[in-house]
């Protein structure tokens, strides 16, 4: 590599970066321009060619049907991802404490519970959705926010705990020990040291949870049976009708549905990278 000058190298980096950005932007681009086409244009012009006469009719038509599911998704997904990430982080810290514990029984407990959590994460939720639906039906939770929240909490706390465990694993042991020596209890250590030091992990987990929940199709499909009262992925799917598909409306719906995860990624992604940089240099004296 040394035969390349630094400028050439930097240029190559930028080029590769640009190529990836373009690849990732293609779907969004396609969604937007095809959503702006008329019903005739969308089937008669190539996918990547923008419309001659852009119109918002498709977006308007779709919006009237997506507004409630969008709001539902926001109400369910955002608080649940926050709660799941927070509880997941606490659980992960608890496992960390158990795993470094001096008591063999606690060590054993840690391994056992951790295996259970990993199992809960890797088990397809489709496998347990029927008993869950029956429970929720008995409790009168079908078609309610509570029902969706309960299901998501159930399925995504283990995921968050597992993800956070990976970020906890790299916490410098001495720093946690130092906090103990300094007379700090587990809760204080968690809030004052563990959370600040794992912010990148917490935000990554949060983003992951938001996107996973936001795109989860199966759970709302089963737990909601009123067409307009469901969550966004099911509502979007309804545009792919049984009697033919309105492609321009499908594209518009897909775009509206992905705005929120996109925004979250754009805004939190910045903090994510900043957090990563801080941790990378901040650990200098504390290997």
């Amino acid at each position, binding site marked *: 590599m040394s035969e390349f000058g630094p400028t050439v190298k930097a240029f190559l980096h930028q080029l590769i970066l640009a190529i990836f950005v373009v690849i990732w932007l293609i779907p969004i681009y396609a969604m937007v321009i095809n959503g702006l086409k008329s019903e005739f244009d969308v089937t008669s012009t190539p996918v990547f060619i923008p419309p001659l006469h852009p119109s918002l009719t498709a977006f308007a038509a779709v919006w009237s049907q997506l507004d409630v599911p969008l709001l539902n998704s926001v109400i369910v997904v955002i608080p649940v991802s926050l709660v799941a990430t927070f509880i997941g982080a606490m659980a992960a810290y608890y496992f960390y404490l158990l795993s470094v514990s*001096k008591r063999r029984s606690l060590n054993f407990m840690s391994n056992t519970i951790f295996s259970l959590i990993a199992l809960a994460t890797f088990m397809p939720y489709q496998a347990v959705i029927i008993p869950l639906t029956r429970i929720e039906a008995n409790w009168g939770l079908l078609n309610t926010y509570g029902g969706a929240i309960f299901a998501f909490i159930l399925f995504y706390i283990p995921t968050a705990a597992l993800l956070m465990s990976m970020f906890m694993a790299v916490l*410098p042991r*001495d*720093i946690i*020990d*130092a*906090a*103990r*020596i*300094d*007379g*700090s*209890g587990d809760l204080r250590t968690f809030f*004052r*040291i563990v959370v*600040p*030091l794992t912010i990148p992990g917490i935000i990554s987990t949060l983003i992951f949870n938001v996107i996973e929940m936001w795109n989860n199709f199966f759970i709302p499909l089963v737990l909601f049976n009123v067409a307009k009262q469901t969550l966004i992925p099911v509502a979007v799917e309804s545009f792919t009708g049984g009697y033919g598909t309105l492609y321009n409306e499908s594209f518009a719906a897909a775009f509206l549905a992905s705005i929120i995860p996109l925004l979250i990624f754009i805004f939190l992604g910045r903090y994510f990278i900043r957090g990563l940089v*801080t*941790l990378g*240099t*901040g*650990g*200098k*004296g*504390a*290997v």
Partner: protein
Amino acid sequence: MVVTVKLSKVTKTFKKGKRNVEVLRGVDLVVERGACMGVLGPSGTGKTTLMRIIAGLEVPSSGEVYFDDKLVSTSNRIIVPPENRNIGMVFQSWALYPNMKAYDNIAFAVKNKGEETRKKIEEIAELLDILHVLDRYPRELSGGQQQRVALARALAKDPSILVLDEPFSNLDARIRDSARALVKKVQKEFGVTALVVSHDPADIFSVADVAGVLLDGNFAQVGSPLELYDSPVSASVARLVGEINELDGVVEGGKLRVLRGVVERRDCQDGNVKVGIRPEDLRVSETEVQGMISLGKVRVKVSSYTGSSFRLVVSPLEEEKVELYVNSDRPMPINSEAVLLAKPEKIKVFKNN
């Protein structure tokens, strides 16, 4: 409240896969209230493990740990957890909290956060010369400053014991001396019981009242640093405490024969022995010197300057393979010949093993 630390027959065994590794084997230790004990030992002998057991971060496999008369740890059980032991600890890695400014790092250890605490922290910072960096993050501090912040954090809470694990190992030579002097001064000023761990004897000599040499999981010798230096119980201790020339010798009827020299040694049994002579107890000269005995003629192989004195490497004329380090107040031409002299009372005799 400053305490006396007492360890009684402490052992520690780690499981490494199927194998058990016995790191500490029945360590007995007393550090009197207000004293500063230095622990010397090669890498991997369990110095950090010993500190962690005292701090309550590690549980002894057997034996007891007392603070004054209070039992704090016993076999496989921690009775007083580390958060209640009131220990000031400087970790080998310093372990500053990267997300907090220096001031908050120090204040984190202090229970009450009033104006009084602020004053106290500033006083300690003043003493340690870090007052002007209190509002910086650890990553914005030099190594020496980080080390002093760690020390300030350990001191700010009025610890019962101060535990310093290789506190100087990450410092460059220039600030190491001042850091040592500082630790000593602070320890005496605060009157706190202290344990300093190091593999560098210079650290121990500059800060400790009492020193112990940890070898193979136990203290091979405990005494004043001078005692360890002048009358080590074994060649390994002698080697750890300072530079030493090791030679083969024979004792016969109260006389020690080493190289071409003969020294009266009534305290030794007959037989082959190891002989240790420190470089400063040797001298090369053309003439006899009062109070020194001759070990025979040597040839100078290397002559170098070491800051304040000259350092020679010499070999006996008839034994080119043997090399000895000798301190000298003047340089010598290479390949010149001279007589090697030694202070007889400083010659150390160890059992052959």
